[in-house]
């Protein structure tokens, strides 16, 4: 890794620009009442990191319990609460908002050439709703937690448990509206606030991916909202909609719940895929292969993603005919995701590849997401799903796509845009080390779980047959390594705020409007709205720009 594309300004004379969005105003209220999308993105970044570590601590507890076959670290009821809270927090308070609310909020207006999102105050409201939802979730944990599994499956959640389903449901309900408002804002911004010359097919692919995810947020999340309302009504007023004794149907809950929760996984992964498009292009010095295919496949994932939800319900009592249809559609939805992997691979082919940290995470993503995605196809086939569902195979599958995929993409994006957001470079060596540690830890944690699932170890059980212990020990060991890998970035990124090298406008020599302005950017992003006169990922244009720049510096 001797070559690098990083080009920093002369450190002896470089300074962070005096006027930027961080220095424009001071004081707590200027942050809490801001309408600047970049400040809101920073607020989100701090918040989701906080929730990530709570979810991570819960994951640590799960792996500690599973070191031994017996349920000896905690009571089984407590274990149920631990994995439930882990799922709820990681999904609703980390993964769903991760890239859109932090990187998307910060960068997307700049990428389209706008001064802010279309509805800045709504953006702030979105963060407050997230915090209120998060507060409710912490309150739920504090008063005793909920143990239904993050899926709130009925009739367990409505009739057989005394835990705090209502407050957990309320927390997710509120957080759902945060997500809806973010998606709504993005869609309006992308449609209505592109700068002159910025046609749809000149947009960075990051914007396309977030657009597709936003459609899912806007159309899918309300169904989750009404479902949670029904669960709360069922628990409080005993209306009977999910109770067979009153003529209700527990499966109705599942239809409504998974109608959102399947698109939710695409809400989580699509923005990450957007990050990968940007990173792979920049670190191969090549435009993304098949721009149109990648753009349309994002939208295709969004559309198809709405029609496959019952593949989470194959064994729950849906009709065989429904299982057939949903299984077929699930096979279809895998295709656009695979298309992206092919396109990124062909972008790499004959590119000038360098291995800075964002690229390490991106390459890790490509491998791990491929494995995760393929195992999703195994699960989507109704026949194999009967054996693999509710086992650790499913757990491994979704951790591969969400952690090996999405979380790596998030870290890739954070490292890639860190210089733009803060004006500082992170320390390269230790970050590369952390990326490798994460990759190794991840594989050690989750690959054994595929085998465990195939061997029949069920999920959501605190105890297991002793013959599964060896693989569980590997998994827990990996989790420890993984924890180190996730802790390091927090430490060195905070360190870099004070001691990192000054980054300048465009340390990565990347294309994209955001790299043409100062780091950190001005509050209004651009002094004047830019005019877009070149295609996306146009490295020749960039070369011309840089030639002009060099000529003008005395």
């Amino acid at each position: 890794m001797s070559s690098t594309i990083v080009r920093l300004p002369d450190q002896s004379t470089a300074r962070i620009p005096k006027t930027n969005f961080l220095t424009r105003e001071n004081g707590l209220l200027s942050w809490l009442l801001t309408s600047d999308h970049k400040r809101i993105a920073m607020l989100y970044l701090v918040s989701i990191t906080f929730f990530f570590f709570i979810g991570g601590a819960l994951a640590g507890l799960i792996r500690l319990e599973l070191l031994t076959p017996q349920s000896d670290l905690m009571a089984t009821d407590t274990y149920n609460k631990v994995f439930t809270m882990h799922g709820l927090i990681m999904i609703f308070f980390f993964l769903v908002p991760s890239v859109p609310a932090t990187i998307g909020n910060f960068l997307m207006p700049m990428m389209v050439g706008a001064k802010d999102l279309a509805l800045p105050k709504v953006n702030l409201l979105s963060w407050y709703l997230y915090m209120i939802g998060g507060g409710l979730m912490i309150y739920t944990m504090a008063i005793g937690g909920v143990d239904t599994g993050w899926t709130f499956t009925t009739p367990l959640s409505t009739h057989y448990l005394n835990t705090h389903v209502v407050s957990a449901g309320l927390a997710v309900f509120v957080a759902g509206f945060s997500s809806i408002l973010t998606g709504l804002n993005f869609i309006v911004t992308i449609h209505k606030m592109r700068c002159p010359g910025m046609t749809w097919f000149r947009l960075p692919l990051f914007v396309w991916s977030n657009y597709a995810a936003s459609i899912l947020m806007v159309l899918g999340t309300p169904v989750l909202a009404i479902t949670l309302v029904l669960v709360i009504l069922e628990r409080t007023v005993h209306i009977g909609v999910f109770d067979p004794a009153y003529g209700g149907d527990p499966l109705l809950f599942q239809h409504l719940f998974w109608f959102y929760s399947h698109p939710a996984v695409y809400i989580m992964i699509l923005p990450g895929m957007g990050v990968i498009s940007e990173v792979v292009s920049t670190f191969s010095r090549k435009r993304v292969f098949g721009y149109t295919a990648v753009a349309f496949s994002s939208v295709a994932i969004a559309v198809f993603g709405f029609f496959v939800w019952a593949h989470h319900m194959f064994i729950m009592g849906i009709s065989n005919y429904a299982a057939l249809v949903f299984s077929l559609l699930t096979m279809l939805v895998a295709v656009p995701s695979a298309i992206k992997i092919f396109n990124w691979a062909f972008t790499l082919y004959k590119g000038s590849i360098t291995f800075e940290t964002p690229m390490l995470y991106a390459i890790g993503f490509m491998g791990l997401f491929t494995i995760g995605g393929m195992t999703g196809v195994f699960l989507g086939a109704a026949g194999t799903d009967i054996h693999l569902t509710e086992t650790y195979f499913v757990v491994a599958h979704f951790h591969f796509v969400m952690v090996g995929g999405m979380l790596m993409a998030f870290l890739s994006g954070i490292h890639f845009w860190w210089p733009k957001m803060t004006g500082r470079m992170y320390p390269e060596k230790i970050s590369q080390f952390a990326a490798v540690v994460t990759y190794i830890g991840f594989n050690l944690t989750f690959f054994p779980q595929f085998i465990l699932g195939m061997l029949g170890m069920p999920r959501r059980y605190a105890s297991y047959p002793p013959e599964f212990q060896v693989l569980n020990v590997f998994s827990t060991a990996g989790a420890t390594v993984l924890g180190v890998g996730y802790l390091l970035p927090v430490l060195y990124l905070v360190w870099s705020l004070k001691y990192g090298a000054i980054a300048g406008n465009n340390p990565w020599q990347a294309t994209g409007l955001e790299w043409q302005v100062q780091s950190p950017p001005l509050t209004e992003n651009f002094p004047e709205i830019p005019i877009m006169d070149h295609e996306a990922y146009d490295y020749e244009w960039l070369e011309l720009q840089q030639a002009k720049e060099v000529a003008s510096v005395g």
Partner: protein
Amino acid sequence: MSEQTENAQHIVGPKVYVLILFALIVGTLATVGASFVEMGVWNPVVALAIATGKAMLVVLFFMHVKYSTKLTKLTIASGLFIFLGLITMTMADYISRAWGRW
């Protein structure tokens, strides 16, 4: 930019609104009347057809969609598409359960 603003282009006047109001009132009375007539399996079809007709009048004229951009129309269509997808595929499961195992 202003060519995208339907507001600047076309102000819908009271005459149209009054016409639509009467059409909606007639539709309401028609649907109530139809519910008293025995039409077997066609009752819900007629009721929903009239309701949809009324809804379309509200959407096209009161909500100005007839004079709106293609984007607005596409947005509404996509929302309806997903809504219908939810209903159709869920009902397909329930209805096909009655067909037995295979």
